[in-house]
């Protein structure tokens, strides 16, 4: 399966990645070969295999509904490039 440039651009946009022409071509080849590999896997007969979301046979440990301390506002905002009045300040979101 060979991906088109448009498909690579679309996936790059979803991942918010800007690709040069050369990178896009390299990604196109690599992603195409990964999809070929997936196609090989899809050829296997799995009609008698239960769908598997995870291979580790564990049940999740559930947590009691108890409030634990949060970070301080200063800690929460420590990595934010811009803040204002305890908020994280970002470019205008166009809804």
């Amino acid at each position, binding site marked *: 399966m060979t991906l088109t440039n448009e498909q690579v651009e679309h996936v790059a946009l979803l991942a918010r990645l800007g690709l040069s022409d050369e990178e896009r071509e390299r990604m196109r080849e690599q992603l195409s070969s990964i999809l070929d590999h997936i196609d090989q896997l899809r050829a296997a007969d799995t009609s008698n295999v239960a769908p598997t979301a*995870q291979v580790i046979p564990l049940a*999740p440990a*559930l947590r009691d509904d108890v409030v*634990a301390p949060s970070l301080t506002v200063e800690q929460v905002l420590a990595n934010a490039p811009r803040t*204002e009045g*305890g908020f*994280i300040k970002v470019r205008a979101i166009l809804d």
Partner: protein
Amino acid sequence: MSSSTKTAPTSVAGTEYEAVIGLEVHAQLLTRSKMFCGCSAEYFAAPPNTHVCPVCLGLPGVLPTINRAAVEAATMTGLALGCAIAPVNKFDRKNYFYPDLPKGYQISQYDLPLALGGEITFTLAGVEHRAGITRVHMEEDTGKNMHASDPATGEGYSLVDLNRAGVPLMEIVGEPDLRSPQEAGAYLTAMRQILRYIGVSTGNMEEGAFRCDANVSLRPVGSAAFGAKVEIKNMNSFRAVERALAYEVERQRAILDAGGTIAQETRGWNEDQGRTLAQRTKEEANDYRYFPEPDLPPLTMDPAWVGAIGARMAELPATRRARFASQYGLREDDARTLTESRAVADYFEAALGDSATTERARLTANWILATLFARVSAETIGTSPLTPGRLRGLLDLLEGGKINRTVAQQVFDELFDSPDEDAAAIVARKGLGLVGDDGAIRGAVGQAIAANAQAVADFLGGKTAARGRLVGATMKALGGRADAALVNRILDEELAKGRRG
């Protein structure tokens, strides 16, 4: 890409269309802590970014742990809606970038949701309707954005508060079984009532704890195929939902009547303009690149656990309404009004106590609906100074013939104003006990007859209405406390004497 098989019916004016509406409800689950971490879930009115930890901030290396109470609340919702609880369900990552989503993905449930295939009943204009429930799944809420602009430059920017990020949320997806905006409104009302009854959500739409998106399409009446559907968002009240749907149905009808086709798109309701507007297209479903959440193993639902959740679920409103009618002999509309809110239904049954005769039940219902509701609402009845026990005390005196209705009303007002005294104490203190003494009443009747010669003459002359003046005078002489039946009987006896004499 929209599916090419779902083309809109093109037609000329005159074709009869019906609306096909399905609702998606998002409801916050009433838990103390967040879905996957121990931060407080009470974000409302909290200072910004004070309920945030490395897990809901999406810092590297952290692991989510599922809040058991959230699973139980969502499971209870599934059971209340008659869904099957999936023995195995799982969480998935829904990937997209937005400033209120610090991880870059939302943990949700995609192809193996918690609950599947239920039903809800609702009543509209006295007619009972049923609508299918497709699924109920769990997810986490996003943060909140505020919009501001620089006063100097006028440049707009946004402020992000992550207190809400990670608050437990469930999505309840309904089948496209609704045929009018009014049905959609009644469906939502019934849905919120159920969530409030079983205590899993505040259902508060204005605070954003209960939200609704709608899918709307039109098709020619009699057609089984669906038209191209439009998703409506940004409806922030029950009224907005009905208005937005009514607008959208007419918008689509006008396009179809003009021979046009409906574009499959997302539109936002603009409350001020009273119309829906096309929204910037976000990702399509396959653009979210859902994949199983690697940090959470699939969730297995032990049947014993599910059974226990069902066992402690409160009686549902429809069941309780039917029981109020059958067990207590209440009229249908009284049973409906009393069960609209669980707080009122609880109050009614507490006030009734063990005295559950039909007569007493109707008396209690009347006093709550006619008298108590003049003072309290469904929201305040739980904190009313007139507790159910004190109302029961009042009705005991009334039903037992210790006081009459007029006095009962007076004592009712006193009960509100002196919260420490019960009805019997008020009656004793104020000397309001019923005068049931034959002699005292006969004396007062005699005085009333003597002092109202004109009324007596009028009555004996055939003006039966004049009798009321004599009853009034007697009652007044006895401070309004006399047994009305006794007054009437004695008055008739005395008047009969006058007639003979």
